[in-house]
Structures are given as structure tokens and as C-alpha cells.
């Protein structure tokens, strides 16, 4: 039987169904993994957006992963509070997003306003970009266009 750290890193390495380049740990979706004395595993996950259709798939993936680690008795809870924020995304996650062609979210400042840094084009790194549409191919993305290379690209919205 694997240790709690091994279970946690195995669960954390599960890819996000909609952005498979990132793991659920990178996105900050995996909140907690606990094992009690009887070997029962509790896992807390949080949705990025209220109606995120990937959440049911993530729940099933987590259950299967924990069982494969030798813990057949597992409960996956969906916790809403505190509400998910893009500030929980790991630095590794931000790098992977950019490599995947998606501009990563900017960090919020102390007063929760966005730091005034430009959204960079993930292709040519130009800082001159503008928003085309608030909403993109998934709930967490917007569509922007680069004024440098002219390409459109998805932007992981700050949330």
C-alpha cells in the first residue's frame, strides 16, 4: 500500500479533461487528500466554474486513481468554499499553459485588483494584445488577438 504522499501526488498528476497538458494539481482543483486509520480516503476537489462539465469526469478519474493506489474505500467531495481562484494555479501550470498556446492568468494584487501587466501573446510574446470575446471554448477562457503577429489565442481568464 502506498503512502499518503504517494497517493496525493498520484491524484495530483491526473490530467484535466479539457486541458490535458495541465494536471488537477496545477490548476488548484485538488484541494485535499486525507487517509483515516481504517484506510478510508477522503479527497476534496473544487470546481473552477459552477457548471464546469469536466467535474464529473475528474471525480471519476480521482476515484479510479485512488483505488489503483490500493485504497478501495474512497469518497470524493466537491467543496465550493473557499471559491476557486486562478491565483491557486501553480507556476509550473502557468508555464505549461503558455507552452500549450494559452496565455496564463495574471495574479491578483493585494487589493484583489489585477496587477497592471499586459496579457502576453503565447506565440510571439508581444505585450500588445486585445480582447475579442469574453467567452471562449471553455468557461475559463476568453479569446484575444495579438497586435504583433495578428494571431488569435485563448486567455485563461483571471478569476
Amino acid at each position, binding site marked *: 500500500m502506498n503512502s499518503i504522499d504517494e497517493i496525493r501526488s498520484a491524484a495530483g498528476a491526473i490530467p484535466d479533461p479539457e486541458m490535458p497538458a495541465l494536471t488537477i494539481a496545477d490548476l488548484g482543483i485538488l484541494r485535499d487528500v486525507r487517509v483515516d486509520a481504517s484506510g478510508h480516503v477522503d479527497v476534496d476537489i473544487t470546481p473552477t466554474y*459552477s457548471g464546469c462539465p469536466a467535474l464529473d469526469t475528474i471525480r471519476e478519474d480521482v476515484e479510479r486513481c485512488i483505488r489503483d493506489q490500493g485504497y478501495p474505500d474512497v469518497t470524493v467531495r466537491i467543496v465550493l468554499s473557499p471559491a*476557486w481562484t486562478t491565483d491557486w494555479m501553480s507556476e509550473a501550470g502557468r508555464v505549461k499553459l503558455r507552452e500549450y498556446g494559452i496565455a496564463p492568468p495574471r495574479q491578483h494584487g493585494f487589493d484583489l485588483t489585477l496587477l497592471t501587466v499586459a496579457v502576453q501573446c503565447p506565440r510571439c510574446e508581444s505585450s500588445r494584445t486585445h480582447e475579442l470575446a469574453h467567452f471562449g471554448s471553455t468557461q475559463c477562457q476568453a479569446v484575444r488577438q495579438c497586435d504583433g503577429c495578428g494571431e488569435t489565442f485563448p486567455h485563461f481568464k483571471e478569476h
Partner: protein
Amino acid sequence: MTPVVAGAAAVYTLRTADDCLVLSHRLAQWSSWAPTLEDDIALTNIALDLLGQARGLYARTAELDGTGRTEDDYAFIRDEREFVNCLLVEQENGDFATTIVRQLLCSTYQLALWQALATSTDEQVAAVASKAVKETSYHRDHATDWTVRLGDGTEESHLRMESALAALWPFTGELFESDAVTSEASAIGLGPDPQALWPEWEGYVSRVLRDATLVVPESSWAPTGGRQGLHTEPFGYMVAEMQHLHRSFPGATW
């Protein structure tokens, strides 16, 4: 009529959930029909957020009313008269202008409501609301941009916005009505007194309409009844369509 659920708290969360579900379904009806691809995606993304918010509140309603019903039970096996959403959300999509005006009026109301519910004494309601605040501020931005663009656009788009506003405005009075359920909800700290949401709603909507060169219509007609299950004619057709699959194949899952 027979009470749908027992207890004011359960009725309050059910009303809020029904507003989200019905508006979600209306917006989902735009799928593949919106004027641009970007807006097809935007309207259905907003619908998805609303559906998620509804699910969270149905789950809480089931605990409060003690019936152990599931989210699907509330959505698919209640009759029209058992829905307690406001009349505004059930109004037909009409043209794009009508949908945008309905979005402006609804999302401004919902954002004010979620902000108040984020400090609800009910932890689950507060958790749903805290997520919804962030989502709904995007919905309101989207409606605001389009309201200004169409209202202050061409002669044709201005006329369409004007007539959409005239048709929908009378339904906004109901949003701020109090009754025994809202009084009880505000007494126990579950939700705000609806009238307390009016100043912010009115201030924001008037500002946007002014930017859009539109005038707040004068109206003495103020339809109401949604919270008691008395709906307008288009709603029955919407419910029939929404429930068709589940009624034909009870317990269907995929």
C-alpha cells in the same frame, strides 16, 4: 395551491434556483442560433454557469425540505405550476436585442443578490453565492457591452432595443417584491430583503441605458405571480420541451 416544499428557507432557495435554471434553459435555446459564433459561445457559457448555480441551490433545497429529492427531480418532474421562478427569466428569447435586454435586467439583479447571499447565514448558500459573484460579473459585463453597442448603434438596432425594453420592463417589479418567504429569509439572515437590492439595480441599469441612449420606459402594468407558480403563457411550452426527454424515458442518464 399545494405548497411545493415545506418551510420558508427551502422555498427561498428553490426560487433562487428556479430563476437560474429557467434563464439557463432560455439561453441554451440560442445554441447554434446566435448572430455570431462568439455570442453563440458566450450565451451558452453563461447558461452553463447558471446551470451550475441552480444545481448547488437544488442540492441545498433538498436538504432543507427534507424530501431527499435530486437536482433532476426538481428540474424534470415538477409541473409548470410548481416552478417558483420570476416571470422575467421565462420570457421568450425573441430577437437578439430582447435576449440582451433580459440579460442586462437579470444579471444586474442576480449580481446584487449573489453579493448579498455571499454573507448568508447558510454556509452552503454563501458558498454557491461566492462563486456566482465572480461568474455573474462577467454576465453583466457582456450584457452591458451589447446594450450600449445596440442601443447606441444603428437606427434599426436602437428601435429593437427600445421595443425589447418596453416589453420586458414591466416584469422587473416582481424582482423586488416582499412576501412571507422573503421576510422569513431576511429575518434568519438567509437572504436579503428584496427591496434592499433595488437602489443598486436601478442605479446600474439607468446608467447603462443612458450610455445606450435608451430611456427607461414608463409603465403602470406590473405583472406578478411567478413566485406563487402562476406563469406567463410561453413558460408552459418551455417546460414541456425541457422535460420531454426525462418524461419519455424516466430516469434517463448519460
